[in-house]
């Protein structure tokens, strides 16, 4: 982790020399399961340019079975870039069109901060745990977000 280039090194860096080739599959793990009338998609890892499209495909595919409720659990997500937000926004739109209720579990700063600064936290039903999301129960802790708009 400490291969920061030394300032003052004489040789020009080759293009791409700062980069390694991370495995996209390892960067984001996605797992889906059915829970009664609900579908739960659990994401763990990092959601960025490399992985957002795969998450979006998974979410849209899971919507096609028309569950009553879809819970997207982002508790294990340590990085959420704008591409991930775009994927979530698209999923929200498709869910609304298909009459599927969408609930998002976001507990860490890594996911809550991007949702909040873009105003998207107001567009989603954001829950503090998967159990709360499945039960439709908003937490009452200091970080609890206001109840979502009803569509």
């Amino acid at each position, binding site marked *: *982790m*400490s*291969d*920061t*280039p*030394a*300032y*003052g*090194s*004489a*040789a*020009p*860096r080759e*293009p*791409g020399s*700062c*980069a*390694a*080739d*991370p495995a*996209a599959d390892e*960067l984001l793990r996605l797992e889906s399961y059915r829970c009664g009338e609900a579908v739960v998609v659990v994401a763990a890892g*990092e959601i*960025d*340019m*490399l992985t957002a499209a795969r998450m979006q495909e998974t979410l849209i595919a899971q919507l096609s079975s028309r569950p009553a409720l879809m819970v997207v659990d982002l508790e294990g997500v340590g*990085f959420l*870039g*704008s*591409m991930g*937000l*775009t994927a979530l926004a698209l999923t929200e739109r498709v869910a609304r069109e298909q009459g599927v209720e969408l609930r998002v579990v976001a507990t860490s*700063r*890594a996911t809550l*901060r*991007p949702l909040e*600064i*873009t105003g998207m936290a107001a567009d989603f039903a954001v829950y503090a745990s998967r159990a709360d999301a499945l039960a439709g129960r908003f937490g009452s802790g200091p970080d609890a977000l206001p109840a979502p708009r009803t569509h």
Partner: protein
Amino acid sequence: MSANGPNELFTQLVQTLNSGVRVDPTLAPLICGGLPGEPGNLVAVRHQLESWASTTGLSASAVADLVLSGYEALANAAEHAYPSGHGPVDLVAARTIDSRVLVVVRDRGRWRPPPADPGFRGRGLLMIHALAHRVEVQQSPQGTTVYMEWALPAAGVGSTTAQHE
């Protein structure tokens, strides 16, 4: 792709929007030049930026904000500057002697007009503006430079104490 050595690139980018800046000699800057703007490269730079930023004295939350901002700037450059492929993207990051941490991202293309949907270019820039303490975006026929800055906490420089939120 870059004819410049890392030092010239660094000087050029850091001075661009910030003339007279004095880089803290006790912390090696991060210099990534001429990187093809491919998603796999960008994630590697993000991880390097995170490792580097965590040595600057910024709080853990500021490090997270810096990493997200830096990545969004890289993604903008990669996505919007080069409609026909992955052109070169530069990133430099440095701590200054007056307790600021700078991240500068540059591409050498022209940003395409934003799509009708306020998609992730607009959202990425909005995020950068919300996350950084200071932001400047300089566009020219030679490309776009995004300059971002965070102030270190008062006792930040030289402090190696654990960072808690």
